[in-house]
């Protein structure tokens, strides 16, 4: 196997992941009988998840949809107002500011955590003393409850006497306001998100890399590819499906991430770090504006679904090639 050519390895790599793991439906080309059996078993396989899905989501979605068409509070539905809540949300400048920052926050969150996570996964894949210990330590940001890590980060950056501003001052950057300056607050929140999320990416990419056949690297090295070529032409295509899946998942996590922002800046200063989910929460639970708040959440979900469908198509393409 080690004498295999790079082109062969690449072909397999493009097919998805690892050793020809293409995940095609076996039923189609096999015997008919097997296909029928597949349908039955597959239905049985999916059934528990379908039941849970209906039980936990059907009523809340209908209920929330109903709320979004009314102008009431948390207890009473209030008058039916058709799509007025959606109209008022869509015409408010605050919604669009929040939407824009949600986009930035998500893009940085997804790609930032992916890059860091993949980098660490690649590093930890090589031979390093105490390999396991580093891995466990690096999973910690994900383990700490957000209320605590937000406190920790606040302690790191909030006041001019905090460690990071003191460091910045010592390095000659002057009085750096990590949270009080709108632009820097955005940057800080994004970095905080990357810090919380990279362990998930590291874990996803580690398990994907673990399933990559190392023989492929041998072949590539024999063929004289340098490290960067090996990375872009072999490693990345081989983990492409996991990459897409983790991008999609992280997109959902970022867009829906309420505690990170709420606990660190609560959307401030002056709405600079306001995301849509924080805005939805504030509207519903702080401003007592239930209809507009739920409408915001629904609008956010619609966009999220569209974005992820595009990414999802990408996954299917990866499989079909």
């Amino acid at each position: 196997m080690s004498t295999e050519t790079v082109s062969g390895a690449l072909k397999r790599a493009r097919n998805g992941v690892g050793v020809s793991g293409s995940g095609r439906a076996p039923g189609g080309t096999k015997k008919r009988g097997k296909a029928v059996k597949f349908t039955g078993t597959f239905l049985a396989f999916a059934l528990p998840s379908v039941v849970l899905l209906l039980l936990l989501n059907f009523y809340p979605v209908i209920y929330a949809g109903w709320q979004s068409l009314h102008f009431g509070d948390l207890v009473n539905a209030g008058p039916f107002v058709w799509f007025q809540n959606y109209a008022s949300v869509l015409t408010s400048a605050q919604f669009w500011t929040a939407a824009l920052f949600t986009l930035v926050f998500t893009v940085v969150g997804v790609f930032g955590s992916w890059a860091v996570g993949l980098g660490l996964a690649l590093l930890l894949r090589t031979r390093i003393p105490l390999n396991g210990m580093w891995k466990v330590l690096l999973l910690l940001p994900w383990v700490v409850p957000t209320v605590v890590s937000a406190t920790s980060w606040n302690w790191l950056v909030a006041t001019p006497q905090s460690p990071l501003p003191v460091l910045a001052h010592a390095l000659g950057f002057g009085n750096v306001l990590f949270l009080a300056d709108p632009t820097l607050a955005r940057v800080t929140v994004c970095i905080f998100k990357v810090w919380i999320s990279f362990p998930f990416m590291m874990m996803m990419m580690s398990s994907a890399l673990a399933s990559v056949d190392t023989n492929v690297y041998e072949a590539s090295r024999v063929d004289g590819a340098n490290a960067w070529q090996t990375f872009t032409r072999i490693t990345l295509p081989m983990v492409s499906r996991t990459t897409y899946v983790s991008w999609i998942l992280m997109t959902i996590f970022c867009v829906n991430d309420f505690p990170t922002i709420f606990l660190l800046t609560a959307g401030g200063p002056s709405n600079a770090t306001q995301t849509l989910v924080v805005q939805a929460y504030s509207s519903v639970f702080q401003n007592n504006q239930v209809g507009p708040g739920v409408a915001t959440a629904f609008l956010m979900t619609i966009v999220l679904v569209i974005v992820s469908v595009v990414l999802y198509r990408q996954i299917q393409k990866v499989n079909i090639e």
Partner: protein
Amino acid sequence: MTAETANIRLAGVPTKRRRLGEQGERGKWWRLLAIFVITLIMIIPIIAVFVLSVTPSQNSTATGFTLENFAHVFTQTEVVYWLENSLLIAAVTVVVCIIVASPAGYVLSRGRNKWVSSYALILFVVQSLPVVTAVIPLFILFSNLGLVDNLGGVMIIYVGATMSVAIWMMAAYFDSIPISLEEAAWIDGASVFGSFSRVVLRNSLPGILSTAIFAFLLAWNEYLVALVFLRSDVNYTLTVGLNTFFQQNAADWGSVMAVSVVMMAPPIIIFSVLNKYFSVGGIGGSLAGR
């Protein structure tokens, strides 16, 4: 099953390790330095938590290193109950989640038709809805079912909340398992279920572990649902218990940090124990042995 799988894999490991090792022997110490610096930077905020947990709290007479914050939370609060509840909820969530998600993930991985694709998409749409909009209707629903202030109610919600992602994660991992293994089993007369449980699952330990960790951490760190659904203080989870130390405009930081350390301990222990299974090679190793 676990032990056997590990054995198969381990057989393939030494060769692989050696090859990677040769390639990077020279850079080993540089990499160690790099990982040390990166890890240190990454966990500074967490080191702060540990330091604060052994620092005397504001109304204390103690100086220097002290364990009085831990003594306080263990004697004055229900933290043992919270720990038990959190462990129980997380454990049940993980097990049920894997039981529900693996077969469904298999369908997503191996089934390629309109229905399966739509199902994958529906899972996704559902996952996209923010939980803040669902809390109140779910509460009304569950209070009618008698599932309020009941660990079971929270477990059901957590399984539901982790399920979509878990299915996707399992599907992504199953994709990396060559179908030729199952085909061989079918030729030997195995049923679809048989080949799934005996061939596919057995080779999916890293994927199952990743998914389990995801589900565990979600259940472990979730706050809003636990807060709203669990009412009596002996039923709290650690996240809810942690927040009892926050007063209106102040907080009992010593206790907060002590409980945070208590909260971090089980995941650290679990990760450390499971760690050797992460580093076991993937499917490549098991193929090499055949």
